[in-house]
């Protein structure tokens, strides 16, 4: 366990996280704030960091295409993890920040990470004007009016790739779960969780072959919590789908070693009205023998949804200190569309 792994452990907090990815929502909650169903989201304040919670993230995925119709996907994530429930100026800060960025093409997959300590200005987030950054990776509000998250600029770079994108929301912020209180297990572990799934995107991807102009759709998740996952939960499968009808679907399945997986879903109507579904309403079934499964059967009978997900690039493995699979998918079946799939807690593919 070198210091870097120690730091990442801290950032990602779960005991077995080194092996399992960042599925852990924290091992202990001592001294940290606990998510409560009575807490109401408040903007723009909640766009900024919540140091009293153990972990938090700003998580953006986007499905993009170039002029020739080639599919691309990008991911931009900033995690915050606290060793103690406060923030301080300078080196005394107990906050640690981790950035992950990915870029998928049908044949290639790029990934990079950044790590920095809080209190130093190297990484952080502010609510107004909104900005989240680590080193030279940056997600910043460009909104003149309305919510800070209505328009964003987004940059990141890594070995062999970079992107610079402009995002404009054409719909409202969407609370997940019950008014933003999202339950993660039958024992009641939960987080505060809201999304902005309505981004239209234009921008440039820089690839070894040269710059590529792209357009597409993006989805931002904001989530913070202090509570550990249930002891027996060892990974999750998460999807965010942009359906051609204009509706969106967020769903996740928390795998459990000892009982059935815990599922949760939010159906988001084209106007942004969310319909949350409790455990069991959504079923997610691997449709390939691959490990992790890069094809899925997704059923939400309540919305007459029965679709097949296929990875645009099955090799979208993020080979970082905490490895996981994350990449764009194509949606076929009862509904058509595109989306993003994230799978944690699987062993690295050969």
């Amino acid at each position, binding site marked *: 366990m070198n*210091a870097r792994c120690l730091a990442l452990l801290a950032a990602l907090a779960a005991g077995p996280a080194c092996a399992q990815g960042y599925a852990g929502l924290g091992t202990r909650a001592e001294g940290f704030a606990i998510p409560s169903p009575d807490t109401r989201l408040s903007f723009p304040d909640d766009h900024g960091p919540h140091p009293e919670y153990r972990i938090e993230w700003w998580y953006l995925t986007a499905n993009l295409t170039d002029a020739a119709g080639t599919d691309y996907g990008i991911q931009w994530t900033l995690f915050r993890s606290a060793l103690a429930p406060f923030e301080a100026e300078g*080196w005394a800060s107990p906050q640690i920040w981790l950035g992950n960025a990915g870029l998928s093409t049908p044949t290639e997959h790029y990934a990079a990470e950044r790590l920095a300590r809080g209190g130093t200005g190297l990484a952080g987030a502010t609510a107004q004007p909104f900005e989240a950054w680590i080193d030279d990776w940056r997600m910043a509000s460009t909104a003149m009016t309305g919510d800070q998250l209505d328009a964003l600029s987004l940059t990141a770079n890594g070995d062999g790739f970079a992107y610079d994108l402009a995002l404009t929301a054409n719909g409202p912020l969407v609370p997940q779960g019950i008014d933003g209180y999202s339950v993660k297990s039958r024992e009641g572990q939960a987080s505060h969780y809201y999304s902005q799934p309505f981004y239209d995107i234009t921008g440039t991807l820089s690839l070894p072959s040269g710059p590529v102009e792209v357009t597409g759709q993006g989805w931002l998740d904001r989530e913070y919590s202090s509570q550990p996952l249930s002891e027996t939960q060892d990974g999750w499968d998460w999807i965010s789908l942009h359906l051609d009808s204009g509706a969106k679907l967020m769903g996740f399945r928390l795998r459990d070693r000892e009982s059935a997986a815990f599922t949760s879903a939010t159906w988001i109507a084209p106007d942004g009205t969310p319909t949350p579904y409790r455990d069991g309403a959504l079923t997610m079934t691997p449709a390939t023998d691959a490990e992790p499964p890069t094809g899925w059967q997704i059923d939400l009978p309540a919305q007459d949804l029965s679709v097949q997900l296929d990875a645009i690039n099955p090799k979208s493995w993020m080979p970082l200190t905490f490895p996981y699979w994350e990449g764009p998918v194509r949606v076929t079946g009862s509904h058509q569309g595109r989306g993003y799939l994230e799978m944690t807690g699987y062993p690295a593919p050969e």
Partner: protein
Amino acid sequence: MRRAALSALLSHWRRQPLQLFTLLAGLALATALWSAVQAINAEARRSYDAAAGTLGLGAYETLGDPAGRIPLATFAALRRAGWPVAPILEGRLLVAGERLHVLGIEPISAPVENLPAGLGPDSDLTPADLFLPPGLGFAAPETIAALDGAPDLPRLIADPALPPGQLVTDIAVADRMLEAGGDLDRLLLLPGAPEGTPGEIAPALRRTAPQDQGDLSRLTDSFHLNLTAFGLLSFAVGLFIVHGTIGLAFEQRRPIFRTLRALGLPLGTLLSLLLAELLLLALLAGALGIALGYLIAGALLPDVAATLRGLYGASLPGTLAFDPVWALSGLGIALAGALVAAAHGLDKIRRMPLLASAQPRAWTTVSARALRRQAAAGAALLLAGVAAPLLADGLLAGFALLGGLLLGAALLLPLLLSAALSLGAARARRAAAQWFWADTRQQLPGLSLALMALLLALATNIGVSTMVSSFRLTFTGWLDQRLVSQLYVTAPSESEAARLRDWLKGRADFLPIWKVDLPLHDAPGELYGISDNPVYRSHWPLIDAAPDAWDQFFANEGVLVNEQLARRNGFAPGDPVTLGPGWVLPLAGTYSDYGNPNGQALVSLPLMLQHHPEVPRLRHGLLTDDIPGLTAALHDDFGLPRANLINNETLKATSLQIFDRTFTVTAALNVLTLSVAGFAILTALLTLSTMRLPQLAPLWALGMTRRRLARLEILRSLALAALTFTVALPVGLALAWCLLAVVNVEAFGWRLPMFLFPRQWLLLFGLALLAALIAAFLPVRRLARTEPSHFLKVFADER
């Protein structure tokens, strides 16, 4: 047939367990010392390779502000502009009366190679331990002991690989301890950093080149060559034992060989059986030796690591990895050694006539002609050694000289001892004395290998300890002289430095210590500007100087360079020295500069300011008679942090501590080699004693008591050790001269004066006698307790 023959051959060892032990122990010891040195070298080489450009913090280019520390915001701005940089904060503190060098690193961004070993894969430390108060600090065990009980320290973890007096800790802890307010000293430029300086993001920052790694490997090479030479020497000493034992075992089994041959065993089969036996024993001893060598290497490695770090700035892990290739090579060297040691014996068996009469003591008798032949070979080796530095330059020639000197002297030893004993016999008046000298001389062939081993060990000991002690004496004297100022002060910033100079007016004289790092004649170097103060003329010793060196120097017409730079480039006073593009000055003189791997040059302060107006002006040496008073005033009135102040006594103590640790390994190997030689004498005496009875019985019958015989046996052992020491002393002194005047110059670039330490010789003489006494004790006790009936058997058995 083979099986029967082999069991007949092996039965010898059952009857001679002591001989078997000697053989195995000798070979195991030889292998152990050799393998230990190899393991250490391999470990070091592995670290250098792994580092390949990322070795130590000095391996990185850095950004720094000549005017002082770097604000945290500047660091953040650089990172946000995409510069891959890692922060370093360091400073000196007085903690519990100890001067502590606090090195703050940022574990999240620092290169992994530079993290303390304690944060390695097996650590059970948690992120909270590391990042939340009180935090963690890594330091050498002696540093931790010295800090015992001091308040406001992080949790301390021992790391023997760290230099004494250094505390490596998280930057947050360093920030707290040094009260740096978030500011930083330097930024390491990590792979992928842009070229050039950051420009408008941080206009004050300057880029500094990494320390030259080629130079480092050249320097460390010489250190490893030193170790290897020691390893070879120990191995040679061990082989003397093995050669003796195998020779004896072959000799004693001559009747068996003859009988086996007479019974129809072909010579080839006999030889192959003996070889098989030898391989078996060598493998067994080799395995033992490897295990032992691994332990020795593990014990020595922390000190080696400290040496390399202290002397050259190379970092090495304090722990040893097990390498199967190394183990195999250890077995290989054991096998090769056993074969070399047995070659002579095997050849004799090959040529042994089937029907010659048995000569049970042939092994111990060597003709005078053979003795002369050996001595001639020794003389030739001596000459070749002396010729080596005349014919070739470099470290290898130096080691050829050492090797020729040692081996030549060893080969000459038997003839010298024989001559000395003849002289003794000629002067002896009493019968017992006459017999003593004559008999000792007759024992000589059987003991000469062991005595040669003793000679090597003693000479090495004298040579190396003379070298180390001379070095230490010179170094101490040099420190006394060179630390001309009583206090050394570093101002936190240029503005503070200016205020300090104003403040000092009327309080104390000060000497600017302003330097820039620059290449000097194509190697890393440093240039200092010094002001015209009489203290330099009186306290700065020049070892090679023009007659009016100081006048020329302060007239801005000359440069002074350190010995390393002068030797590397063959400078003599008057030669042109290039200090920069278009800046050439004649050499006014050279000065000693021990412990500095880099070239260094001094120019007068006006010249320095003219050519390098941007030179940081932070360090100053203060001349004062009232150290405590000035210290207190600087702290209380001027407001200088204690960390920015160091007095020359502390500086000297730190330097000497590093120096002493540097030579711990040498001392350990010295002791080990001497022990092996002592063991060689013991085994030789033990084997001889088994053949002594027939020689002593008649003397006893003629009326000498057992007690008297035993006393004479002890005296013989002491006399031989004393005579050997007499030969070893000049050889050792020659060796010391060689180390100081040839090897040191090649390896480090400085030549040291040689001092003599008769008290050390006396001590070593005592040690040699003690070793001889201990070695003789066992056989002699056996003799003193021999029952008369055993003596009688000598007469009765003949019937």
